[in-house]
């Protein structure tokens, strides 16, 4: 399978380990990625106040991909939302298409061009079973919660590959690696990414909710498929700890890093050393039997008496 590849700004910056792990994992999954030439920023969520501008910036990338004659794969949920939305507009809104074609002096290909998120390609085009055949290492010991966030599955008129309220594609992929996939009611809740710069306290409160439930479920890591989610959960984790005077210490893996580990790839190849929260303890726990903890039930009355003291 040969696909055009749009990394987006973050994968060449703060999410470079997502870029690296996407490339190595894709190679093993027999996907050839051709980075689209001279791509530009999609406008992210900062262009929300100008829908046409956001779609116009995104449409240019689509046209650059069309020059390669390939379908397009995108690992970032925000970019894939923006470019997907622009594709629909370029195919259905003649006035908008006219503006953009005039600005770029080129025609937009109307048929046979698809845009997909990387997770969609891995789970539905390659398939979980076919991927599992490439797995060399059982990841037993990893207890993950799958975090989809917002734009990976919403709105369903743009992202059509999974259930927008209770998606399961990432769950299935985690299970296929031998890792435990724990139930996570926050799986499509917002991480607050878009408020990080303007209302940091709000963003951190939203992120804290995710951490709290992940911890309560007994997870030893969170698996994500979006660089913005990773920015909040991994990069900002120490800041959240400081702001809320708490200890979180939860490694956050891109799903490509997780399946890369199952494929037997090294930490270096997956750039796991570039994650801000070190996953080394997690990685050394793979395959190890967990020490049995004896849970002693304390009667409620006794607990209350203790608290009163």
């Amino acid at each position: 399978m040969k696909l055009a590849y749009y990394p987006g700004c973050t994968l060449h910056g703060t999410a470079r380990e997502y870029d690296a792990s996407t490339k190595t994992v894709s190679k093993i999954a027999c996907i050839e990625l051709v980075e689209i030439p001279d791509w530009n920023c999609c406008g992210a969520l900062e262009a929300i106040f100008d829908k046409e501008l956001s779609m116009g910036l995104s449409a240019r990338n689509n046209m650059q991909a069309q020059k390669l004659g390939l379908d397009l794969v995108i690992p970032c949920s925000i970019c894939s939302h923006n470019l997907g939305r622009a594709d629909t507009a370029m195919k259905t809104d003649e006035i908008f298409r006219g503006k953009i074609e005039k600005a770029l002096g080129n025609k937009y290909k109307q048929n046979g061009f698809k845009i997909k998120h990387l997770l969609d390609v891995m789970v539905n085009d390659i398939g979980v079973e076919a991927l599992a055949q490439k797995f060399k290492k059982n990841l037993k010991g990893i207890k993950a919660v799958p975090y989809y966030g917002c734009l990976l599955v919403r709105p369903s008129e743009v992202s059509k590959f999974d259930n927008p309220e209770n998606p399961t594609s990432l769950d299935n992929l985690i299970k296929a690696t031998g890792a435990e996939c724990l139930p996570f009611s926050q799986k499509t809740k917002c991480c607050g990414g878009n408020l990080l710069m303007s209302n940091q306290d709000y963003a951190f409160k939203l992120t804290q909710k995710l951490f709290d439930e992940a911890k309560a479920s007994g997870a030893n890591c969170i698996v994500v498929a979006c660089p913005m989610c990773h920015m909040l959960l991994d990069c900002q984790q120490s800041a959240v700890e400081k702001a809320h005077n708490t200890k979180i210490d939860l490694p956050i893996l891109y799903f490509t890093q997780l399946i890369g580990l199952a494929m037997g790839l090294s930490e270096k190849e997956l750039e796991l050393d570039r994650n801000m929260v070190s996953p080394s303890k997690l990685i050394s726990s793979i395959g190890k039997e967990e020490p049995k903890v004896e849970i002693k039930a304390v009667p409620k009355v006794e607990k209350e008496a203790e608290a009163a003291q």
Partner: protein
Amino acid sequence: MIKSSDLDPNFKYEIANEPGGENIKLCFNCTGCTVGCPVTEIDTGYNPRKILRKALLGMRNEVLTDESLWLCASCYLCYERCPQDVKITEVMGAIRAIAQRDAKAGKIKITHPKHKFDTLFINSVKSNGKWYEAGVSGMFMFMTKGLGGVIGYAPMGLELFKKGKLSILPHRIKGTNEIKNIFKEIEK
């Protein structure tokens, strides 16, 4: 108290004419947007239903100067769940567009920093074709919190830099002319 003589009955049409705002008139105020909203969960002062209701009533000035307009996290949950397909996330964008235009014309003042960040971000895309993370973040910190803000942000920046994740200089694409043409064509 709402004085009907102060209302602007054209406001809803103004929003509906803005890209993304087309469906505002479909809203029948069921509160589905607000019930699931993650921001409302942590701040009940943010109430998307109220913003929509006020907009439909024509409370133009109140809506455009309401700080909470800038609190939407663009998570698209209300967009997904709305039974009337109002496309609320994009309606919020459309209202912000009108607010920014009014602010530019000196009619209102936007105090919320989100507006500043988005403007810096988009300007950097306009000139480079990509967003200049270090520059935009640094500038934003300086504009909103002064030198202390920049210094406060520096340790995080340094951590990112050490991991090879932050570039000091902006990256510029070859097709910046095409980007400028897109801006020009959209602004018409």
